[in-house]
């Protein structure tokens, strides 16, 4: 596998995760700082399902996605009823909790990490999964559920008057984002072949958020753009690791100053064409 294919795979995996972040933060207005932990749950569960139970590539990833889904209900059920700030705090706690469990558990290889996951993921796997996720998220956005997410974000009281169950709407967005993160985690595990607890910290969750902000919080196209550009930039700067975070900070500051709604704002690629075909609005 060439260096460039590796970069494309990593970028594709990040694109997949940020589609979930777009649903959660862009549409629903919820800030999760534990999204990387859902990637970890998906990655470790997929790896363990393959190594310990002999499941194949696809079934292992499906098990990983299911584990992330279950985790989203465990975290979401108590925290999504609280104010948004407390929800964000709960996701931070979840992130640290997952990291601790991975570090102490013998099933996950502890602090040494999970070694020996077969290297199966190829670029076409990520491309197919990425296109599928982008299509699913686009459909979600243009559905009654997507509109419910936006209405809960902008005016929760009014949304409830129109029959939107705000808790379930948030839970659906949170679980969808978690499952997408689980899928990305599974692909990541089978790409790298090695997983360690420090790969999925709060810094990674923050990076996902920054990517979506950079591209345009209200734009699905922006989320893809932000993920591709910033992942490529980070890979290009791999040899100058100490500069990476400074460049990241500069990008955030410049974006906030000159394009507070992100590079794409709420613009969507190809939407007029889709609108003509499907008669769909621009929710």
């Amino acid at each position, binding site marked *: 596998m060439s260096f460039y294919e590796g970069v494309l795979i990593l970028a594709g995996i990040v694109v997949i995760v940020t589609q979930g972040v777009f649903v959660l933060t862009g549409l629903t207005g919820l800030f999760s700082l534990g999204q990387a932990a859902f990637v970890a749950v998906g990655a470790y569960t997929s790896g363990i399902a393959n190594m310990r139970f002999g499941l194949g590539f696809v079934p292992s990833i499906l098990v990983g996605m299911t584990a992330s889904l279950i985790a989203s209900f465990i975290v979401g059920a108590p925290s999504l009823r609280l104010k948004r700030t407390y929800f964000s705090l709960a996701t931070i706690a979840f992130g640290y909790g997952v990291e601790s469990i991975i570090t102490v558990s013998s099933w996950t290889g502890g602090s040494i990490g999970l070694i020996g996951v077969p290297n199966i993921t190829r670029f076409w796997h990520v491309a197919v999964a990425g296109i599928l996720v982008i299509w699913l998220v686009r459909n979600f956005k243009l559905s*009654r559920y997507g509109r419910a997410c936006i*209405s809960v974000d902008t005016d929760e009281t009014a949304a409830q008057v129109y029959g939107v169950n705000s808790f379930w709407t948030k839970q659906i967005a949170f679980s969808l984002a978690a499952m997408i993160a689980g899928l990305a985690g599974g692909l990541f595990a089978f790409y790298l072949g090695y997983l360690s607890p420090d790969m999925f910290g709060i810094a990674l969750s923050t990076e996902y958020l920054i990517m979506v902000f950079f591209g345009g919080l209200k734009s699905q196209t922006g989320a893809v753009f932000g993920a591709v550009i910033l992942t490529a930039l980070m890979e290009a700067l791999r040899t100058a690791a100490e500069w990476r975070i400074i460049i990241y900070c500069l990008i955030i500051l410049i974006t906030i100053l000159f394009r507070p709604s992100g590079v794409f704002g709420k613009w969507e690629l190809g939407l007029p064409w889709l609108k003509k075909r499907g008669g769909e609005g621009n929710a």
Partner: protein
Amino acid sequence: MPETMASVLTIKEVNKSFGGLKAVDTLSIELKQGEILGLIGPNGAGKTTVLNLISRVTACDCGSIVLEGHDVGRCRPYEVSDYGLARTFQEIHLFQGMSVLDNMKAACHLSGRYSLLDALFNTPKKVKVERGIEKSCMEMLAFFGLDKDANKDAKSLPYGRQKLLEIAKALVTEPKVLLLDEPAAGLNDEETQQLLTLVKKAKERFELSIIVIEHTMDFIANISDRIVVMNFGSKLCEGTWADVRCNPEVLKCYLGED
């Protein structure tokens, strides 16, 4: 309005306190089928709290609220809409960043239902339901003369048209009971007159029963079949406009003794 008309909404001995302040005090109101009930009173009389209690935006302390035979007094706010209740707010509550049409579609959350899987996989069922939603939204927008603005950002509309959009949003949910909280506030005379005509027309066309709060007395006098006057959270009196305007208690507390 004939006395024998069936009740669509019955509020019985409802109470609501905020700390030490009794906002609604043992209030009973009946809304009859096809009636427009005006709810008036001085600022702080508890009118908006009554609408909030009916729509469950605020929970009542005690008493019962029966809507079309269903006790909605213990419902969650999002469940009341299912029983045929829609409302507007005193301040405009449009969904920001959405077009006029998408605001309408967002209000159709319950009337156009399909599963999450249908939504994700864009099944023919979803496409069919979405087309139906769009059709009914466009028809409602046309009724209010807003169809040409369908693709504009809702917040970019002039204030008067945003108010109309709020009512259009409420009506597209196909309610039986509509609660209007100061619909004419901030409108000029021409817009108020247009609103009055549209509300009357909508009542006939969609067979609505309406409770309306308003401070513009001409509007209330022209639109209401019956009026309830509130003061300090209680009902002061009720009757036709002719009855209440001559009531000495009303003149004293609200219209001024002169």
